[in-house]
């Protein structure tokens, strides 16, 4: 199992958290876990919607303080 790769997309508006996640997902290997940090409220719904549609795996999603911590795993 690979280490979790942290993607810090807090306090950014462009390209934004989901675009950052897609960028890093392309660089990752199958089986890698990525943890997205975001202060954008929409991330909590945007990421699961994309993950479900594209077929990767949601691992967890929680809000700690002002930051969303969303873990996903690349499956293909």
């Amino acid at each position: 199992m690979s280490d979790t790769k942290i993607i810090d997309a807090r306090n950014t508006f462009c390209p934004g958290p989901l675009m950052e996640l897609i960028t890093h997902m392309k660089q990752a290997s199958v089986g890698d876990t990525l943890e997205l940090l975001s202060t954008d409220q929409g991330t909590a719904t945007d990421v699961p919607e994309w993950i479900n549609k594209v077929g990767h795996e949601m691992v967890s999603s929680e809000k700690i303080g002002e930051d969303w911590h969303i873990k996903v795993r690349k499956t293909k």
Partner: protein
Amino acid sequence: MRILVVGGGTGGTIVANSIARRLSSEIKAGKAKVTMLSASDRHMYQPGLLYVAFGQMMPDELYRDQASLLETSIGFHVDPVVDFQLDRNQVKTAGGKIHQYDILVIATGSRIVPDETPGLAEGAETFYTEAGAIRMFKSLREFQCGKVGIVVGVPHKCPIAPVEVTFSLHDYFKARGIRDKVHMKYHYPINRIHSIENVAKWAKPEFDRMGIEYETLFNVSEVDVKNKVVKSEEGTEYKYDLLISIPAHRGMEVIEKNELGPGGWIPTDRHTLTMEGHDNVYVLGDTTNLPVSKTGSAAHFEADVVAENVSSIVKIGAPVTEYDGKVYCFIEAGHDRATYAMFNYQNPPDLKPPSKPMHWFKMSYNKMYWTSVRGLL
């Protein structure tokens, strides 16, 4: 103090000129030296490629001799770096020369990688290179009717480009009197039509008004060139007659080969703009891994910060300012109207309605760029 700038694009040129002017006394006194290493003796104004694709600018308007843009005190060499030896504070060039430095600025930029998506380079038009923009213009000229698809790679340079080219296509077909014979469909990787929420909110009703269809959560997986079908990782597809691509990009090969950062993006502190683990190495523009727009504008504002800090380090031994994430992007809303998006790490853009004066300002800026890149504007 030896200051070495690697890369002669927008960021590298502005930072080198600004440092050279701020340190003119120190350079004259032999206490500071600014050197630039670049892969090319020409400098391209990349945003102009969009206008080339619509026949509004000629390619030769996009170029100047790099040396003509630089302060005369800068030592300029067309000799790209092939080996970054950061532990020894030196680089080695393609010509075999070693350049030592006290402060290094890396601004090597990025490159488009359409070949990484099967069929995309062959099947889609793009305007991200001179040859591509000319080819796209010729394809548009020949196009009479049918389905036009716009697709967007991730990550891509200039996040505003997808909506700009879409609005421009609408106006172009309208001006030719064939808009009613053209079906346009815009495809975007995330679940709204632009990454900036306020841009998405503004562009969506514009698309509706112009009759432009859109599909979100569409990440291109491949282009079936023979059957003219573009497919997404999400499992959908679009049959096109003409496909326009905003291609994905990566950092330069030399960054990847030297293992300075995955994808060719160097891990960079978002405020100090120093390379992680190397306080005497600054990174700016497309070369960083920062979650900010890869645009000339970001490179410009980052260059201002780096120049101020490098100069203050020479003068008082410490940096004095930080980058706040500032970006200012013109947004062409067609061929005669424009608006802009200005934002930083803390404040999202507040979009104003597009206007003709803002379009004229953008057209003027296309000329003023040459003053800007000299660090004078």
